[in-house]
């Protein structure tokens, strides 16, 4: 069986995040909670964040979904912890570009998220990888409008 494509999709770093998720759980006294689901496939995610002075002090996630969506959430929490909200949002933009196969500016300080580049070869799975980033964007948007 030719698993070459799959090896790109399911790289060991991704499976590591899936099987050993970072920042899994809930921040009880967080400043921001956001839920998002993907109605077409049933994946769901809840992010809780502790944001102070425009900086993401802490973030946790919980949810249910495939390896790609859960690994992506785990990677995202590592990437954005300690970052400014604006920086976190722009990371999300760069991540979306990577998913669409466009030029992107993902740097080493963004943790493991580049490992998901192979997902762009599987169009049906892009929405799995972007679920947590979409949730983050929605959360910041809602917080901003309050």
């Amino acid at each position, binding site marked *: 069986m030719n698993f070459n494509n799959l090896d790109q999709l399911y790289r060991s770093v991704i499976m590591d995040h899936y099987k050993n998720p970072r920042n899994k759980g809930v921040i009880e006294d967080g400043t921001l909670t956001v839920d998002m689901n993907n109605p077409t496939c049933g*994946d769901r995610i809840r992010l809780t964040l502790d944001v102070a002075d425009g900086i993401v002090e802490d973030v946790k996630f919980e949810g249910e979904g*495939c390896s790609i969506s859960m690994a992506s959430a785990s990677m995202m929490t590592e990437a954005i912890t300690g970052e400014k909200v604006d920086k976190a949002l722009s990371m999300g933009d760069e991540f979306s570009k990577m998913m669409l196969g466009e030029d992107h500016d993902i740097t080493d300080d963004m943790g493991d998220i580049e490992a998901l580049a192979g997902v762009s070869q599987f169009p049906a799975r892009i929405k799995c990888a972007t679920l947590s980033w979409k949730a983050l964007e929605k959360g910041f948007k809602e917080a901003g409008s309050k």
Partner: protein
Amino acid sequence: MNAIDIRSDFPILNQKVNGKDLIYFDTSATSQTPSPVIEAMDEYYKEYNSNVHRGVHTLSTKATDSYEKTRMKVKNFINAQYFEEVVFTRGTTAAINLVARSFGDMIVEAGDEIVVTEMEHHANIVPWQQLAKRKGANLVFVPMEEDGTITRESIESVVGERTKIVAITHVSNVLGTINDIKEIAEIAHSNDAYISVDGAQAVPHMRVDVQDLDVDFYAFSGHKMLGPTGIGVLYGKSELLERMEPIEYGGDMIDFVDLRDATWTDVPVKFEAGTPMIAETVGLSAAIDYIEEIGPENILDFEQELVNYAYDRMNEVEGIEIYGPRSRAGLITFNMEDVHPHDLATVLDTEGIAVRAGHHCAQPLMKWLDVSSTARASFYVYNNKEEIDSFIESLKRTKEFFSYEF
């Protein structure tokens, strides 16, 4: 029936997906289309595309004739008593919405009960939820057995004097459960209730005789029975359709129109406002011919052979859990231990195998099964045991792939 001969009628199956021969196991979502159906629609557009019930010119007469002949063909196919009992709709969903809106609003009052099951597709839950909300009525759920079946006793335990409508699927799109509609209709009627059946997963796969079942309404779709998308049928007993109000207004469905009011034409066109799905009825007609040529009884036997074979072979694969009863229609919904169904479906897709993964438009049933999603393989006339063998090998390799210590 000879599955090999049939296969050559389906041009789409003769292709590679990700470098492998396509194995299409997603008929429960939509079936593939045989050449005679494609050619019939092609001929319609090349030779007599025209609007129906309007013109006196030759093409329009030919189109109208074809449209109404299809209605007659559907009547015979499901053994309705009158051709007027066949209403063309966009699909099963539109048909059920028509029943819930028009018939439901007419007969359901505050405090009444509408009986449904937890195995329903969203299309056969949400319209009834909304009806119940509009009227202050209650939705009541038939308790299911552990294997995802319902019994005479369970139906009798919830159908009573407050019941106005029993809305139930003939075949579950997830569990494969085949409900005894004739028995359920009898129970509904003996309680002065009506029965509306979602037949989307039944009509393509077995002989359905609406008079024998004695159902009040029965809905199904063309695209799950070798026909095109965008066409479906609502069967309704004529005395009920006669009493119902249309829910869409416009051309074709009127009798007289005045500046401030209008009257309706007769059943069934009363429910077919606007230019209908003419080409799609041409395709549906050819699909019925195709099914009749094989014989719905033979289709059922053939699928039973496939599903039993698949069921036994899937049990060879470690960590596979199958949902639903042992005796089932031609589909298997399952999960693989430690592998999310989306991941499973992606791996199978790289091997050219198309299965569905997700909640199958049945979120309440997923909750009942206590899973967030599942994978489903569904079979039809163009599938064969060799494909099931390849599928089993792929399942085993998938298991192996995800068992690696990453």
